[in-house]
């Protein structure tokens, strides 16, 4: 007996979830734009203090991880589970490196006593306090998404290994890929908005 699967339905379901994610981050982006509009110079000062090369490298890492994710899906569609796993592992490694960079970045800032409600930050201009509040909450929420993505991809790796995701049934991997790409898109906007204010 063949199992019934509604492929189109599960894809639309995933997309609806992704749209709600866009609205979640969209609200924060609106908040960001209002505060930046009201405190342009403070946002500029805040962005100057962020590490631009770190942000740029993390952008390249996430873009590359999106490529390996797409290649992993196309490999499994061809029935090549070995390469699918290899590309998935590459995606996982790149995701870990991204989070590692984020960790060092945050640790550096916290070491300089710049974190929400820190005495040294509270001495500064109101706009800069807002900038760092948004910086921590938006990159933090994004980092949480990367972390969840890594867990999901890890599970997908196990499913491929067991043969439960294969050339006849790959929708779980495809949907996880959609999520991973969305997280990439959000970073594509976060990077210029926080690191490249002139």
């Amino acid at each position: 007996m063949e199992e019934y699967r509604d492929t189109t339905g599960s894809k639309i379901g995933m997309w609806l979830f992704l749209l709600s994610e866009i609205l979640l981050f969209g609200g924060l982006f609106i908040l960001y734009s209002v505060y930046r509009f009201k405190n342009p110079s403070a946002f500029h000062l805040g962005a100057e203090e962020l590490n631009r090369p770190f942000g740029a490298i993390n952008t390249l890492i996430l873009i590359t991880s999106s490529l390996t994710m797409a290649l992993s899906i196309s490999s499994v569609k061809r029935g090549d589970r070995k390469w699918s796993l290899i590309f998935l592992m590459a995606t996982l490694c790149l995701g870990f490196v991204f989070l590692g960079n984020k960790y060092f970045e945050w640790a550096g800032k916290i070491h300089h006593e710049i974190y929400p409600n820190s005495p040294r930050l509270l001495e500064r201009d109101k706009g800069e306090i807002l900038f760092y509040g948004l910086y921590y909450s938006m990159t933090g929420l994004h980092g949480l998404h990367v972390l969840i993505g890594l867990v999901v991809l890890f599970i997908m790796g196990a499913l491929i290994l067991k043969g439960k995701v294969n050339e006849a049934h790959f929708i779980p991997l495809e949907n996880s890929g959609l999520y991973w790409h969305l997280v990439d898109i959000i970073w594509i906007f976060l990077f210029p908005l926080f690191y490249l204010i002139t």
Partner: protein
Amino acid sequence: MESERKSPVVKDRTYVLVWVGLVILTGITVSVAGMNLGRWSVSVVLIIAAIKSGLVLNYFMHLKYEKRIKLFKWMIPGILAVLILFLGLTFFDVAFR
């Protein structure tokens, strides 16, 4: 089962080309920020980010190839319309307060 086989297979070469495009656009974003275009730099940087997202959505996320169902064509413009509406309303409030 059958419908899963029908889903489009994009060539690996296409993916790699899209990746090259994304890397080049990232380079342009970083160098534009260094050029000090003043008030235009936000718009330039946002336009580049929108192009990059378009590449990811259309190729990596296959939106370009989802032709069977009309919903896929309208959902991104729809959600952007909602966001722009709320952005507009928020700024209308902030500007005339």
